[in-house]
């Protein structure tokens, strides 16, 4: 086995709001091997983004990591000081955010956004930083990079902005890149281009990538292993192929059935209900109110993440009995 680059275990990140404690991440464990791309998948509010934020220790207040451990390159991130963390963000870990229209600072030119980080982390002189900014824009496939350097974010198209955001995230060559729904706000053709770009960059730069998305298509396309999250808990962990061919958790099955397909003519199934209130999560299995297979035990007892097969873990009382439909593809 290769060394684990990032090892998050039993992470609990709660938000202490006035309405109560929101258990956004409630005992999530994820590990990432160096060089691989893994997926974190789940609906909105399942804790995907907060997991990434926790790894960088940038959880916005009133959120706080209350328990668990996060190890990166063998070092305990939760024991590090804020100063030490700051030196890791950028050169070691970086994030590509969901919405490029808001993740770039509107008052600065593209050049300034890129050189700023380089001057901060690499102590480059301004001219060198500009050189590298130009190179980065070429790297992410922006045409006429000299011209774009001087542009303000609002002068660029959505796809272009996301490329700039990717260039910014890559500026200090991070070992680990979190892509937090990087294509959600882009239209379909641009989506494909950006995904292709991320894939290529990941290979060329030998980066490790954590792909955060709710789109099973992206998961199939980009990742080798997947962790399915629901309501701040891990539902299922498996190789991507296994998730698609032999899902073991009813939630995974439901997610797969909600994906439209060109070949199929079946009616798209919707997952009934909404993600539960995380201040008072349901008793037992968090998914039971929406699960069509739910039995008495699901209401009473919380399932543990069990090892079903080699490399395949599932948190469901019924996984042995259920014969779940794989996605017919």
């Amino acid at each position, binding site marked *: 086995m290769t060394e684990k680059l990032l090892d998050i275990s039993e992470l609990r990140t709660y938000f202490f709001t006035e309405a109560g404690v929101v258990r956004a991440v409630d005992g999530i464990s994820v590990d990432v091997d160096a060089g691989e791309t893994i997926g974190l998948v789940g609906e909105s509010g399942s804790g995907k983004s907060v997991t990434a*934020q926790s790894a*960088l220790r*940038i959880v*916005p*207040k*009133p959120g706080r990591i209350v328990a668990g451990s996060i190890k990166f390159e063998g070092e305990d991130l939760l024991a590090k000081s*804020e100063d030490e963390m*700051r*030196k*890791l*963000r*950028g*050169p070691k*870990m*970086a*994030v590509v*955010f*969901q*919405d490029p229209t*808001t*993740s*770039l*600072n*509107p*008052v*600065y030119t593209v050049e300034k956004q890129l050189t*700023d*980080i380089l001057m*901060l*982390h690499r102590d480059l002189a301004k001219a060198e930083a500009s050189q590298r900014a130009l190179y980065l824009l070429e790297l992410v496939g922006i045409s006429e990079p000299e011209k774009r350097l001087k542009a*303000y974010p*609002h002068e660029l198209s959505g796809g272009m902005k996301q490329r700039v*955001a990717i260039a*910014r*995230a890559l*500026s*200090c060559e991070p070992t680990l890149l979190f892509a937090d729904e990087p294509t959600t706000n882009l239209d379909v053709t641009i989506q494909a281009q950006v995904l292709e770009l991320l894939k290529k960059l990941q290979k060329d730069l030998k980066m490790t990538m954590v792909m955060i998305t709710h789109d099973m298509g992206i998961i199939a396309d980009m990742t080798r292993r997947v962790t399915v999250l629901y309501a701040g808990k891990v539902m299922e962990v498996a190789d991507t192929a296994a998730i698609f061919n032999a899902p073991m958790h009813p939630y995974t099955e439901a997610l797969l059935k909600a994906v439209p397909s060109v070949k199929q003519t079946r009616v798209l199934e919707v997952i009934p209900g909404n993600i539960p209130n995380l201040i008072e999560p349901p008793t037992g299995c968090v998914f039971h109110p929406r699960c069509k297979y739910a039995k008495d035990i699901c209401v009473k007892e919380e399932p543990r993440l069990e090892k079903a097969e080699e490399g395949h873990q599932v948190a469901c009382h019924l996984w042995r009995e259920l014969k779940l439909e794989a996605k017919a593809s």
Partner: protein
Amino acid sequence: MIALLGPFVSPYPARSYQPLYEGAAGQSPSWKHPFGVEDSGIDVFSEVINGTKNDLYVGLVASLLTTIIGIALGAVGGYFRGLISDLILGITQVFFVIPVLLLILLFARVFEILVFKGLGLTLIVLILAFFGWSSVAFIVRGETLRVREMEFVQAARSLGAGSSRILFRHIVPNILSPLIVITTLNIAGFILTEVVVSFLGFGDPNTTTWGLLLNEGFALIRTEWWVSLFPGLAVVFCVLGFNLMGDGLSDALNPRLRE
């Protein structure tokens, strides 16, 4: 239209009065006097120009000081959460409800009794700044609260920027437009306050300001109307100019509207 003209109209009091002032200073008072002469033989024209300098000094310096205090307290109070933030908000609210004008008059009275002298300009500036920053702080606080939730702030954080860097390089530049507007509006407001203070006779009688001229002219308003009219017009144009300038600047500095 008016907003576009603003930047061209408003520098007028600041720029074109000044060279005239230098020219007029050499002239003997009451030789050529386009604005008439006071009873005492003081040339109103040169006094109005003289007053421009002092009134602008009050307006600009007081506004600059309030903006600095306002940014510091507003940004810190808006960015961080918890006790400090609540405390700053509380202090800001207290200062917001203090009637600055009354306070200045009170100070002036006390001052007069203590040192037998009206309030000097610098003192007025300091009092204005010390009690006038709350509106700036409120705006900065509100804007900071809005901007800090935006994704680029988190992006900056995820790339290793520290709190002060985020606050002053990412948040403050993004709230410049409302800040500039309130600053220029404050200039006008402070000039008005100063005019009121000296008009009521609480200023320093040895420092020419428009308010002082108005005060002097008020007694003569039936016979020598020009003594009140021209300083009054100067006040109106100056305040109007700064208001227009605030508008113009906020348009000019908005990166979204640039080009």
